[in-house]
């Protein structure tokens, strides 16, 4: 009798065949969505219009990951949303099944493998790395040691011209009050190895442009992390007549998308020297501001873009003296929402609203340049829908477009970890595998007679 542990129960999950190993679930319950590699059996399951990721994993790891993902959400860190754990799944052929951890599928998310296709631009790769670096720094800021940083464990979402990264796998993670430098270095060491493997694999699959060197990409990512970490946490010292540097630091952090919640400022008794160091920084500077003003929930760079448009609107409509919140409401109803209304219902799964608005702004800018005139936003929106959006793949959940990767067929469309169909021959004989299928005893059986025989140097008598 399976048992459900959930903070947000979804009763439609209850009748699913939990007594069956996940790898053997009927395909009509599954969706083949692109995803990274995983050491466990992972499947996307669909109930109604909702898609969940299900991962079969040993109980204490399932519990651990469920709790950690909850903690990460509480700490407002980008990670997938945990939905629950199914335990006590009964037996298949006498062997108890491991629990299943359920997380919500992150809409509009793209695993890195779907973003790499032959001819991917270097610029795009670097933006993916930047998104990963920001995620890693944010995790480290809250005291989270990941233990398995890799592109496979990240989902990306479009964020204006860049990407936002989300953590998908917290199994090896640990949450501490804060991280020591050693813990951070170690996490970076793992990141270095895993990323190198990720890029080598893309290279081997012909998915990485030949001018992109895996080692160089890894070094770039680590250097960018170091720079960001220094900006976020490093101390800065200057003379007493350079007070402007305090404000500069705050501005630089805001530009990076961070807010200083606590800045430590020390001065020498004579006031000659000043030392500043951010103590608490919070990510999401722009997205929180946009949320406060408009209620729109967006990624950081999308928020930046929308806020810029809001500022332009305020200036254009000559409302600099009017309260910002009032103008923001007007912008929402006069600009943002009418643009969304231009998009036909059946095209809305192609882009998130904020991303769509950003792309309309881009479209308008190019059109205005080309035609040397002002292009009204609604006209731009209509043009964008007609010229661009219609031909884009669905990204809300897009099985068909992204698979197969690079024109190759997956062995199992529901499990990319099994690789691609490209070798026809039979696998070589492996003597180690002989007899693996049917162990004589369940794993919990302790055979003291065999142990005594082994200690005495005798062959063990057949158990039973």
């Amino acid at each position, binding site marked *: 009798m399976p048992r459900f542990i959930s903070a947000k129960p979804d009763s439609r999950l209850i009748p699913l065949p939990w007594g069956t*190993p996940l790898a053997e679930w009927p395909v009509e319950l599954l969706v083949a969505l692109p995803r990274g*590699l995983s*050491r*466990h059996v992972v499947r996307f399951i669909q109930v109604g219009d909702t898609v969940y990721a299900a991962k079969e*994993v040993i109980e*204490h790891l399932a519990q651990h990951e469920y709790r950690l993902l909850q903690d990460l959400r509480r700490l407002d860190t980008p990670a997938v949303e945990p939905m629950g754990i199914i335990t006590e799944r009964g037996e298949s052929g006498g*062997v108890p099944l*491991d629990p299943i951890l359920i997380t919500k599928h992150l809409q509009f998310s793209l695993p890195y493998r779907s973003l790499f296709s032959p001819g991917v631009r270097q610029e795009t790769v670097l933006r993916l790395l930047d998104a990963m670096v920001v995620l890693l720094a944010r995790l480290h800021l809250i005291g989270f040691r990941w*233990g*398995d940083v*890799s592109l496979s464990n990240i989902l990306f979402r479009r964020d204006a011209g860049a990407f936002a990264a989300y953590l998908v796998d917290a199994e090896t993670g640990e949450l501490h009050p804060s991280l*020591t430098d*050693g*813990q951070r*270095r*170690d996490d970076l060491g*793992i990141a*270095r*190895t*895993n990323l*190198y*493997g*990720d890029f*080598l*694999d*893309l290279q*081997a*699959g012909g*998915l990485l442009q030949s001018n992109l060197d895996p*080692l160089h990409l*890894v070094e770039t990512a680590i250097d960018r992390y170091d720079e960001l970490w220094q900006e976020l946490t490093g101390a800065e010292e200057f003379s007493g007549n350079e007070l402007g540097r305090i404000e500069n630091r705050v501005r630089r952090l805001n530009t990076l998308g961070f807010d200083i919640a606590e800045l430590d400022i020390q001065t020498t008794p004579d006031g000659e020297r000043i030392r500043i160091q951010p103590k608490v920084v919070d990510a999401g500077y722009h997205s929180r501001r946009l949320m406060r003003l408009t209620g729109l929930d967006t990624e950081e760079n999308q928020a930046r873009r929308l806020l810029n448009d809001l500022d332009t609107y305020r200036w254009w409509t000559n409302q600099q003296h009017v309260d910002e919140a009032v103008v923001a409401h007007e912008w929402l109803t006069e600009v943002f929402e009418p643009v969304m209304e231009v998009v036909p219902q059946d095209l809305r799964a192609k882009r998130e609203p904020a991303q769509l608005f950003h792309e309309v702004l881009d479209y308008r800018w190019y059109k205005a340049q080309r035609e040397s005139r002002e292009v009204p936003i609604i006209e731009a929106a209509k043009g964008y829908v007609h010229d661009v959006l219609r031909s884009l793949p669905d990204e809300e959940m897009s099985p068909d477009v992204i698979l197969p990767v690079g024109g190759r067929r997956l062995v199992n469309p529901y499990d*990319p*970890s*099994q*690789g*691609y*169909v490209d*070798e026809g021959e039979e*696998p*070589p*004989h*492996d*003597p*180690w*595998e002989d*007899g*693996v*299928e*049917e*162990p004589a*005893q369940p*794993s*919990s*059986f*302790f055979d*003291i007679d065999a*142990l005594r025989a082994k*200690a005495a140097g005798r062959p063990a008598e057949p*158990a*039973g």
Partner: protein
Amino acid sequence: MHQDMANVTYQDATRIYPNSDHPAVDRLNLEINDGEFMVLVGPSGCGKSTSLRMLAGLEEVNSGRILIGDRDVTDLPPKDRDIAMVFQNYALYPHMTVADNMGFALKMQNMPKAERNTRVLEAAKLLGLEDFLSRKPKALSGGQRQRVAMGRAIVRQPQVFLMDEPLSNLDAKLRVATRTQIAALQQRLGVTTVYVTHDQVEAMTMGHRVAVMKDGLLQQVDSPLELYDRPANLFVAGFIGSPAMNLIQGKQVEGGVQVGDYVVPIAREILAKANGEETLTIGIRPEAFEVAEQGIGVEVSLVEELGSDTYLYGTLSGLGDDEKFNAQQIVARISARHTGRASGTVRLNSKPELIHVFSNATQERIS
């Protein structure tokens, strides 16, 4: 295949987490021999993983020291300790060959290609993966994938292997097969290995020696058989063995310990060590019990036949109905020829040398 193997020494190694009132690992003293397979085992929160992570350099050592060979590694960063966490990364890359999957980290360290290939080939031979080297991992079974992941650690040729619950991601079927393979492989490699598990069966079947921990304290470190035959205290006695040892409290009386209407005879010199305690705990393994004329009375509630053995489950006889409800279960494994008598109330006895006696005051073994 490794030249300078090494022993590992914990000297009063202690880890106290911030805001915690007691140490996660409390003055651990443990000597792991060159080439030994040491298993750290205990219930969740006992300090086994923390101990491993202190050795790996992932946890600060607040006091005491850790040595690998003669090197004090207490304050060294993880990468300078010459250790390898096995199975840190299991994911296999689908476009890369098995050989590249095993050796890619060496490439990152700029190791010359010839040496890389030699190391990968050596590891593949050990793992029985030679024929798979030029293949992609797509067709590999769960166990083969596990071996490739093991190969990643082997090619680094570290002084010490560390494994933290390495079987936890395998299904039950593979767990049994893989634990045998890991133990055999360690034997052939001869590299000092520290292995953490919460599963006592895994610990007992894999380790040369097993260190049992509880609440941050080392309880006992011994060979599996010694742990089984001479558990040092009540915790180890109850933790090691499946089904567990029967631990029965009784009153100390002249010549033995009274259980129900029967006095389990205990040698005078053992009772002398009991310091006049009113009650003692005796421990008897299920397979040490024999059905006899004289012995502890047990009311049998369930008989289970497993092959040539019969398991009797019951409670001490002579209990009131209320007591029965919460009474501890007594388990006996007897050979099948006794089945005929295994119903209703039986008398169970054991050879004196198979009876363990523990002090209730100190929880220590006194027999």
